């Protein structure tokens, strides 16, 4: 029977079907961070268990860490005592159980979904889990990767398996060549606008088409990262030469292992006659830069569009639109380009990789951040991205323009560390969620590409990408 990539990964990792009808699948890799692991480690201790396979686990603190650290920073320097406890707890648990951690002082510390691939821990064909919904990012390597809850983190630590039911298959085919200035972030936001945040519920989405074939691993990660915003906990892209080149550069596999592995990775694609439960084809050549206007990633429009008005009957749920408009401080008849911005955030596991920073840096070179912007920050996703950017002089370009150059972490993607919006501040953000309060109590988030965020920093408003 012809199978999809997801079916193949599922079958390869399937240990057994349980009486309950669920399946036990084997997990190759688990990433851990400080927020969703403490209760899992506590559960392990209570049951007097040890991690099933230590080497499967890689940990790093990212959500709580301040991003103004400098060289001699240690965990003791975290001002917020409650945040500090979580980071200390991760240190303690990793030491106690012997789990490899890139701690807050490590030059490899960073957002877990950024460091995994770049340190070569994410390899094609793996099953990967993490107590974080953006684990879908790793699907860009043809991994069956998904976010799980804390009880499941404990389950994977203790048993190296996950108890799950199979998802349905969905394929999104992106065809064509995008216009200048349109990035993978715009493409994925456009998709979410089309199918909605529940569009992929219950499905694993495979992204394919010549657009996908032609883009870099960084761009593919941005797309798989936001599969969860389309409701799909699994996003997938079949490994190809782009994938294998990336892996060769980033992993430390021996030649022997690499040859063996490559034979296997070459088989990881959907059969041509495989059947998908849902399929959608999108022509990317007409997509304009996308910006969200509301409080859900599906509330997204062309950057120059007039915002949905409450009297039009295009949108089904007027109540949701009204609530979102109120929260976002948007008046009837306004356009996105009418809004004045207070802050700019370039970062997060969606858009904090080297390519993202390069794109933004080129756009702002020799220009100045608008005086109307209170603060514009750039937060590299990892120590490695930061070092690479600095070696290319990107930090200088950003700083000369008036951006603040920070240390790696989740930063303003979520209001857990010192980088937060103040009430009613409007932010141009390259992150993935514009939920109410996500970037700080009553803060207003507009999601967009790094390029659009860079332009917004310079102009103070959203405008043409000239």
């Amino acid at each position: 029977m012809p199978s999809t990539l997801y079916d193949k990964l599922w079958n390869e990792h399937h240990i057994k079907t349980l009486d309950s009808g669920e399946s036990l699948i084997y997990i190759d890799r688990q990433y851990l961070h400080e927020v969703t692991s403490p209760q899992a480690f506590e559960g392990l201790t209570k049951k007097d268990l040890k991690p099933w396979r230590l080497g499967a686990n890689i940990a790093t603190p990212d959500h709580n860490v301040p991003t103004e650290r400098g060289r001699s920073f240690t965990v003791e320097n975290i001002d917020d005592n409650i945040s500090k406890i979580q980071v200390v707890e991760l240190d303690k648990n990793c030491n106690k159980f012997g789990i490899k951690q890139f701690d807050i002082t490590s030059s490899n510390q960073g957002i877990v979904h950024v460091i995994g691939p770049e340190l070569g821990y994410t390899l094609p064909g793996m099953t990967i889990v993490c107590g974080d919904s953006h684990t879908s990012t790793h699907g860009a390597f043809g991994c069956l990767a998904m976010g799980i809850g804390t009880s499941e983190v404990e389950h994977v630590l203790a048993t190296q398996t996950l108890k799950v039911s199979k998802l349905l298959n969905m394929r999104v085919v992106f065809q064509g060549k995008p216009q200048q200035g349109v990035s993978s972030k715009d493409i994925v936001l456009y998709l979410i606008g089309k199918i909605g945040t529940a569009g992929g519920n219950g499905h694993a989405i495979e992204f394919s088409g010549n657009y996908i074939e032609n883009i870099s691993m960084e761009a593919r990660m941005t797309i798989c990262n936001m599969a969860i915003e389309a409701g799909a906990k699994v996003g997938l892209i079949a490994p190809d030469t782009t994938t294998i080149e990336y892996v060769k550069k980033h992993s430390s596999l021996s030649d022997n292992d690499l040859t063996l592995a490559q034979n296997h990775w070459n088989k990881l694609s959907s059969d041509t006659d495989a059947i998908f439960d849902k399929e959608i084809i999108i022509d990317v050549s007409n997509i304009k830069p996308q910006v969200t206007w509301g409080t859900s990633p599906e509330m997204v429009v062309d950057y120059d569009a007039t915002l949905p008005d409450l009297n039009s009957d295009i949108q089904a749920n007027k109540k949701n639109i009204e609530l979102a408009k109120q929260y976002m401080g948007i008046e009837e008849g306004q356009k996105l380009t009418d809004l004045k911005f207070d802050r700019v955030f370039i970062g997060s596991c969606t858009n904090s990789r080297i390519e993202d920073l390069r794109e933004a840096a080129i756009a702002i070179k020799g220009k100045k951040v608008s005086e109307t912007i209170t603060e514009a920050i750039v937060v590299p996703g990892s120590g490695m991205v930061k070092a690479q950017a600095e070696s290319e002089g990107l930090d200088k370009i950003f700083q000369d323009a008036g951006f603040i150059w920070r240390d790696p972490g989740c930063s303003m993607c979520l209001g857990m560390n010192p980088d937060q919006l103040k009430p009613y501040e409007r932010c141009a953000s390259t992150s993935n969620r514009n939920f109410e309060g996500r970037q700080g109590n009553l803060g207003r988030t507009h999601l967009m590409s790094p390029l659009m965020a860079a332009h917004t920093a310079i102009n103070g408003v959203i405008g043409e990408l000239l």
Partner: protein
Amino acid sequence: MKMIGNEIQIKGIVASIDRDNIDTDQIIPTEYLKSIKKFGFEDYLFDGWRYLDEGKLGISKSQRKINQDFVLNQEPFTQANILLTRDNFGCGSSREHAVWALRDFGIRVVIASSFGDIFYNNCFKNGVLPIRLSKDQIESIFCAEVKEMSISLDSRTIEFNDTEQYAFDVEDNLLERIVLGLDDVDMTLKYAEDIKLFENKRRKEKPWIYADE
């Protein structure tokens, strides 16, 4: 949850929130994810809607400015154990804290037309039953302004206004986990031998997966 004869019933007060896409950041904001405990989240449930001021972990309800317009602050809904909402409830972040907050507040059942996948799974690990109904059924419950409901887990039906009855569907094994409070880790470790066999074979066939050990 009460055993009535052989029948397992959940009876109680229904609080309704008329919104689509209530994400886990709304159910519990990130600030409270700083806790390293698994309990004690009741005061932070729907924090951004329930209070007029900004909260911090450790600050209790009595020290906060209450938003009287929010349903969970109004009688009798302060005692609600059933939550009615619209589409795609629990989308977004994987935080199990969202379910812990619902559970700690006393919510035993959430009714929606669909749920975020990760949230849906997390519910069953913590004794909260997510029930999916059709959009039309949800609409009629909203229209009828139902305040009390009775849910039978045996017959998988919900009953309200004495006469109305809707059937719902839920996988046997998931329901069983809620009713018996089973622990997944203990259950899976019964298959330790199967896991070991699988792992040894994999180690031989795909050594690169284990290369960094």
